[in-house]
C-alpha cells in the first residue's frame, strides 16, 4: 500500500523529468553554433553536398518539427541514429552502458565493503592509530586525481610488475562474449568460458580499484561522522548500561542508525561513479559511456547526446526511487509515517 504510494507518483514524475530534460538538451544542442552536416560531409564539402546531407538527416526541417519528430520516436522507444557512427543510438548505448555499469557497480561495492568497516572502526577508536590510518586513506582517496592515480597503478602493475593488464575489458586472445547482459563477468560464465571469465576479472581489478578508491574516502568519512554522532546518543548508553555486549550495540544499534544518512550518499556516489568513470575509462581504454559521450559532444552528435541524457535522467530518477525504498527498509519510522 505505502510502497505503491511512493512508486506511482515517482513514475509519473519520471515522465515529466524525461520530457523536460529532452527539451533542455534539444534546445542547448541546437543553440550551439555548428553544423553537424559539416562534420559528417567534411569541412570542404560543397554547398550541394551539405544540402544533401542535411536532407538525409532531417536537419533541413524547422527545429520545432525536428523536436516533434524526436519526441514522437522517443515515445516509440526509438532514440534515433547517431550522426557519427551511423548506428542506432539505442544500440550504441546498449554496447557501452553495461561496460560502465559493470565497472561502476563493482567499484561501489568495493568502496562500501572497505569504506563502511573503515568508517566504523575509525569512529570506535577515534583518534587512535586505526582512525589516523583510515583518515589518511580517505584524504588520499578524495584528493588524488583519478587520472594520476590510474597511471601510477598501470605503471606499477602493468608496466613494472607485469601481473595485471592495463587496458581493455578482455585479453585479445578471447572473443568478446555474445551480449546477454553486457556484463562480461556474467556473459562469459553463461557461455561456460571460465578462462575468459578470469581474463575479464583480471581486467577489472585495476580500474575498479582506482575508481573505488576515489569514493572510498567519502564513504569512510560519512560513516565515521554519523557513527560518532550516534555513539553519543542516550540510547546507546542505555543499551550498554543494560548489559548488552559492545559488539551487539555497535553493529545492531549504532551502525543501523548511522547508515541511514549514508544511503543518500550511496545513491549520489553511484551517479558520481558513472561520471567519474569518464576519466578512468579513458586511462584504462575501457569502452564505456564516458568515451562515447565525450566524442559525441565534440562532434555535435545530437541524437547521441540526447539519447544519453534521456537514459541518464531515467537512471537518476530510478536510483532515487531505490534510495527512498531503501530508507523505508532501514528506518521503520519512515515506513510508518509514509
Amino acid at each position, binding site marked *: 500500500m505505502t510502497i505503491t504510494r511512493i512508486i506511482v507518483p515517482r513514475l509519473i514524475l519520471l515522465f515529466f523529468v524525461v520530457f523536460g530534460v529532452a527539451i533542455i538538451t534539444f534546445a542547448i544542442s541546437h543553440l550551439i553554433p555548428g553544423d553537424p552536416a559539416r562534420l559528417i560531409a567534411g*569541412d570542404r564539402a560543397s554547398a550541394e553536398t551539405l544540402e544533401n546531407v542535411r536532407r538525409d538527416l532531417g536537419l533541413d526541417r524547422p527545429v520545432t518539427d525536428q523536436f516533434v519528430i524526436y519526441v514522437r520516436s522517443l515515445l516509440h522507444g526509438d532514440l534515433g541514429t547517431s550522426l557519427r557512427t*551511423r548506428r542506432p543510438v539505442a544500440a550504441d548505448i546498449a554496447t557501452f552502458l553495461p561496460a560502465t555499469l559493470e565497472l561502476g557497480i563493482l567499484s561501489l561495492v568495493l568502496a562500501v565493503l572497505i569504506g563502511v568497516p573503515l568508517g566504523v572502526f575509525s569512529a570506535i577508536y577515534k583518534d587512535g592509530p586505526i582512525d589516523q590510518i583510515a583518515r589518511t586513506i580517505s584524504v588520499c582517496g578524495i584528493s588524488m586525481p583519478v587520472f594520476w592515480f590510474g597511471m601510477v597503478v598501470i605503471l606499477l602493475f602493468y608496466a613494472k610488475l607485469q601481473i595485471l593488464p592495463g*587496458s581493455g575489458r578482455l585479453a585479445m586472445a578471447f572473443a568478446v562474449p555474445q551480449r546477454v547482459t553486457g556484463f562480461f563477468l556474467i556473459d562469459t560464465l553463461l557461455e561456460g568460458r571460465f578462462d575468459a571469465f578470469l581474463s575479464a576479472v583480471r581486467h577489472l581489478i585495476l580500474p575498479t580499484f582506482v575508481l573505488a578508491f576515489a569514493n572510498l574516502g567519502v564513504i569512510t568519512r560519512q560513516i565515521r561522522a554519523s557513527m560518532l554522532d550516534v555513539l553519543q546518543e542516550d540510547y546507546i548508553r542505555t543499551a550498554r548500561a543494560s548489559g548488552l555486549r559492545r559488539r551487539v550495540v555497535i553493529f545492531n544499534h549504532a551502525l543501523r542508525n548511522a547508515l541511514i544518512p549514508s544511503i543518500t550518499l550511496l545513491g549520489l556516489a553511484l551517479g558520481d561513479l558513472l561520471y567519474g568513470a569518464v576519466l578512468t575509462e579513458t586511462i584504462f*581504454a575501457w569502452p564505456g559511456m564516458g568515451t562515447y559521450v565525450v566524442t559525441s559532444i565534440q562532434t555535435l552528435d545530437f541524437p547521441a547526446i540526447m539519447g544519453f541524457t534521456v537514459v541518464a535522467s531515467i537512471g537518476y530518477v530510478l536510483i532515487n526511487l531505490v534510495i527512498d525504498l531503501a530508507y523505508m527498509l532501514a528506518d521503520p519510522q519512515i515506513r510508518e509515517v509514509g
Partner: protein
Amino acid sequence: MVFSHWKKIGLALLLATSVSSSAMAAADVLVLARAEDPPTADPGVEISNSGYTLIYAAYEHLVAYKGATTEVVPELAESWSVDDANLVWTIKLAAGHKFDDGTAVDAAAVKFSFDRLMKLKAGPSDSFPVLKEVQVVDPMTVKFVLSSPFAPFLSTLAVSGAAIVNPKVMEHEVNGDMAKAWLVEHSAGSGAYRISSWERNQSIVLDRNPHFSGPAPALKQVVIRVMGEVSARRLQLVNGDADIIEQVPVDQAEALKKDPSIVVESNPSLYVSYVYLNNKRPPLDDVRVRQAISYAVDYKGIVDGIMQGQAVQMRGAVPDGMWGHDPAGFQYSYNIEKAQALMKEAGQSNVHLTYTFSQADTSWEPVGLALQASLAEIGIKLDLQAVADTTKREMAAKGNYDLAPGAWTPDFADPYMFMNYWFDPAKMGGPGNRAFYDNAKVTSLVQEAASTVDQAKREKLYLEAQTLSTQDAPYLYLIQKNDIFARRAAVQGYVYNPMLIQVYNFATMSKKE
C-alpha cells in the same frame, strides 16, 4: 571454510596471471593502438583518416600511389587513355582481382561503386566535381565521362572514396540506403584484408581476404585497438602488447627514441598548419596589413619551440613533397622593421583583432599566444577567443572571424588541392577559400591549370599563381608538419606515403622478433 574458498579463487587468479601476462602478440598478428574509433568503414561516406586505415586495407582502387611518391600507378586498372577533348577516360581493368567472396572485379563493379558514391553524395563524392557518367564498355573496360576537363582526374581515382565495392553488397540494403548501414562496420572489397569483427571503442579485427590476388600477406591478422590515453598507448608499445601506436606527441616521441626496441617514424607530411586572414574585413582587406602580419611572425620560434623541430616553415601554398611546390618561392621571414613600416604605410595603428581557435589541434593555442606577442610589436592588439571546434569551423566557413588557424591535408595528389581550394573565389567559405581571397589574375591562372591536362604546363601556371598569391599574403603560411607515430623495431616493411596518413601497407608488412 570460507577462507579456503577464497584461497582457491586467489590461486586460480594467480595461475591465470602467470600464464597470460605480457604474452606478446604472435608474429603474424599486428596490433595497432590509436586514440579514436573510426566512425565508419564505408568508402561512400567516410572522410577521416582513421576510417581510411580500414578502407585501404579492405578495398582496392583503379590506381594506387607508387611507393612513397604522390605519383599514381595501376592497381585494378591495367591501362588508361583519355580522348582529345579531355572528357572521356577509358580504363581497361586487369584480370584476376577478386572480391572477398570470390567474385571477379569487373566493369559493372566499377560502375556500381561510382554510381553509389555519387548517389550517396556525402563528403567523398566532392573529389569528383565533374563526373557525369560511368559506362560499361565490356566486362573489362569502363568509361568515365566528364562534363568538363578536369586535370587531376586520374589522381582522384586513388582517393578513399573511389574504392571499388562488390555490387553484391546490395543484398544488405535496407530502405534504399545503398547498404550504407551494413558497410559502416563491414567491408566488401578486393583488398588484402577484410573486417571480421568490430567491437565499438574497443577493437577491430582484420583478417586476410582468402581471394586476394596479390601475394599472401605475412600478417595473418591486424588488430586495431582504441586507447584514448597516450601514456597508456606508450606503455602498451614498450611492453610489446602493441606493435604500432599513433598520435604520439613530440615530447613523448623524444623519450621513445631512447628505447632501442622502438622506432619513432617522423616523416615530412603534406599536413600544413596555417592561419586564415579574413581578406574581406578591414583592416585585413589591405594587403599591406596582411604583409605586415606575415613579417611580424617568429617562424623559427614556432618551428623550434612549439613544434620542437618536427616541422618546417611553409614556402608558398603548395607544400614540399607535392609537385607544384616552388623550392625557390618567396618566404616571409621575421622582420619587425619592415612590418612596422608596412603598418605605417597603410596608416594603421592601434588595431584590434581577434584570433578564433579551438583545441582540435594542440598547437593552435601556443601559436595564438606567439602571434599575440608578435603582433603587439606592430601595434595590433590580438585577442584570443577559444571556441568549440564545430563553432570555429562554422565561423570560418561564414567568414565570421579576423584570424583563425586551420589545418589542411590534400585528398588527392595534385596542387589543385591547395591552389584551387585556397584561391578560387568559387570555393569561398567552407570548401577551402576561407580567407575570402579574390584576385582576378590568380583566379584565371588556377582555373586554367585545373582544366589543362599537360602537367608541365599546369606546373608553370600554378607556380605563377603561387608567386602572385604569396605576395598578397591572404593566409599566414606557418608550418608543414611531420607525421609522427611509433612502432616496434620488429615491424618490417612499412612504407610511408605522404598521401596516406594513418594508412598502412599491411599486406607487405611483417614482424620479425
